[in-house]
């Protein structure tokens, strides 16, 4: 922890009170960021964890330590089903979104030349529209009176509107996939765009076909960006409650919805906090696995 600056050394003032003052100054300079992290990140999480180990006493919280919230959670079949379903829904939709966004980013970066920035912008423009509106749009498309049904009927494929498109697990997956694509695109696009043109050329020069170049050079160098994109997509979809509430129906309910219920109608904050902790924990677990793929021993020049 030596913090001797050239100035100090020259002036011969390297005394310990001075060094202490230097550390204090450094701390003061950092303090806005530290306050921000403490108030907005640490504190809410501490409260969340505290609430989850306090007792619910008919809608009020009594500050007695208990693990009952967790034990009843893991005994509840409803919770276990929802946890499993939520995991499946968000893993599936994030995977599909990645499978769409990554090739999309690859095509934009490699084929669009100087128009790639415009193309990238067009893909992430939906982010400018309110989240609620974007999910609502799926209702308009998939609903009983919706665009899809109207099209199928006018093409004569079906003769009466189908209810099958809306309010199901599949609907939630479709909507969440759609929601996640721009974010994953952004992350993978950045990763691919960082790879200089001459790596493609060098690989081709070494006799590698376009597929060989992708597999041996481009994929390893962009994989961390894909992993980060996947993680963002997963976190985004795993905690979502708006989308399942709007297009999921009963079959598409996810953990986020019951957190809302516990904090809202059920007025059971400790239980809600417990579910919140489980969601955060599961998220961290997936992130830990994903982070294994973000390592890259390379420096791109």
């Amino acid at each position: 922890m030596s913090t001797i600056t050239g100035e100090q050394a020259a002036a011969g003032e390297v005394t310990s009170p001075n060094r202490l003052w230097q550390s204090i100054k450094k701390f003061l300079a950092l303090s806005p960021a530290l306050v921000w992290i403490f108030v907005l990140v640490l504190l809410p999480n501490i409260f969340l964890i505290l609430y989850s180990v306090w007792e619910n006493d008919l809608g009020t919280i009594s500050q007695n330590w208990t693990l009952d919230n967790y034990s009843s959670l893991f005994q509840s079949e409803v919770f276990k089903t929802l946890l499993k379903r939520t995991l499946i829904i968000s893993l599936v939709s994030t995977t599909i979104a990645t499978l769409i966004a990554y090739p999309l980013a690859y095509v934009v970066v490699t084929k669009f030349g100087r128009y790639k920035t415009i193309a990238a912008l067009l893909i992430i423009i939906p982010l400018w529209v309110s989240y609620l509106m974007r999910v609502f749009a799926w209702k308009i498309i998939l609903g009983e009176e919706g665009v899809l049904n109207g099209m199928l009927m006018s093409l004569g494929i079906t003769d009466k509107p189908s209810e099958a498109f809306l309010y199901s697990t599949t609907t939630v997956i479709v909507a969440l996939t759609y929601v996640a694509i721009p974010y994953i695109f952004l992350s993978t696009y950045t990763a691919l765009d960082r790879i200089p043109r001459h790596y493609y050329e060098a690989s081709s020069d070494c006799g590698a076909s376009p597929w060989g170049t992708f597999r041996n050079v481009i994929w390893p160098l962009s994989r961390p960006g894909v992993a980060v994109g996947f993680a963002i997509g997963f976190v985004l979809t795993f905690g979502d409650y708006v989308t399942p509430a709007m297009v999921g129906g009963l079959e598409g309910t996810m953990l986020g919805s019951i957190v809302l219920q516990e904090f809202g109608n059920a007025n059971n904050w400790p239980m809600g906090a417990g579910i919140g902790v489980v969601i955060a924990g599961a998220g961290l677990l997936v992130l830990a696995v994903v982070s294994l793929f973000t390592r890259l021993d390379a420096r791109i020049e």
Partner: protein
Amino acid sequence: MAEEREETELNTATTERQEPSARAATGESAAAVVELVGVTKTYPGEEESAVADVDLRIREGEFFSILGSSGSGKTTTLRMIAGFEQPTIGRVFLDGNDATDVPPYRRDVSTVFQNYALFPHMKVQANVAYPLKMSGVPRREIGPRVKEALERVSMAEYAKRLPHQLSGGQRQRVALARALIRGPRLLLLDEPLGALDLKLREEMLFVLKRLQREVGITFIYVTHDQGEALAMSDLMAVMNKGRIEQLATPAEIYAKPATSFVAGFIGKTNLLSCRHVEGNRAEAGSVPLILAEDPKQSQFTLSVRPESILIGTDCHSLPNRFVAEVSEVLFLGHEREVLAKIGDQRLMVRSQDLTVGPGDTIEFGWDPKEAVIVEATGG
């Protein structure tokens, strides 16, 4: 099978390579490894062509340099030979076959990139093994060949390093090893020494020259450094504004530059714009000059190299002899560069006399045969 064919071709290349410059001079037509026919490249959205109507024939085993300043089209020419760019007009032939539309990975051509382009996530040995792996060479053969290739450029002990752990010169050697490992017919070098410091550059020049002698393959070497081009090449092309200004041996280009651009670009020279008077007499501004022969043009540019200008008593027997005032002196270590004024003309001469200073008077002259008419500037 393919291996064997390559092997024998390499051998013939080595034996054929005895006197490439002599062969080039006699114009004997050995097999052309590369041939560009009427190649023009215009990048989309740009008015001027990067490369304009270039014809080029490069023979087996030659060390061929393309010399030019930045933006002269030399790198674009190289990229079309490698296959990274397609010519807008014209054809590219490799080994006599039309390769204009052949993608880079199907061409028997290797490139050493200006920035080396080593794959950052692969260790040195994986980088060098990559071309073999991609062409489906059996795994057990790859190891020994990589080792041998790294030894050839004295990089064997760095096999397990990643590119960013190497210095510029070391990366350069790895890039060379990677480019040579498949034993290509043709090696393209795009300003390979550009990023190195002077001392390393000189060292690498010797490494390159030795490698080319050993492996006997055709080198096409793109550079903006005239010293490198003169030192290394059997044949060189000087490019300017997308066109080849002159294509000849280094000695010929130095002694008989075809244009004033070439004369000015290769080495230092005095360019005098002259008017023909009569017979072998001409005038540069107000200074009368004697030429070796009748120029047959009324206006032209004359190139006189500083080293062909003799100073002091040496010049007494020469027809072009002047007494001039020294206006500036540059100390270069082994000699001095003296800027002298005669009439309205300024000439650069070299002097070993260390006492010359501004304001002094010197006497100098040159043999008319040493002056070259590089360009007609009218009529």
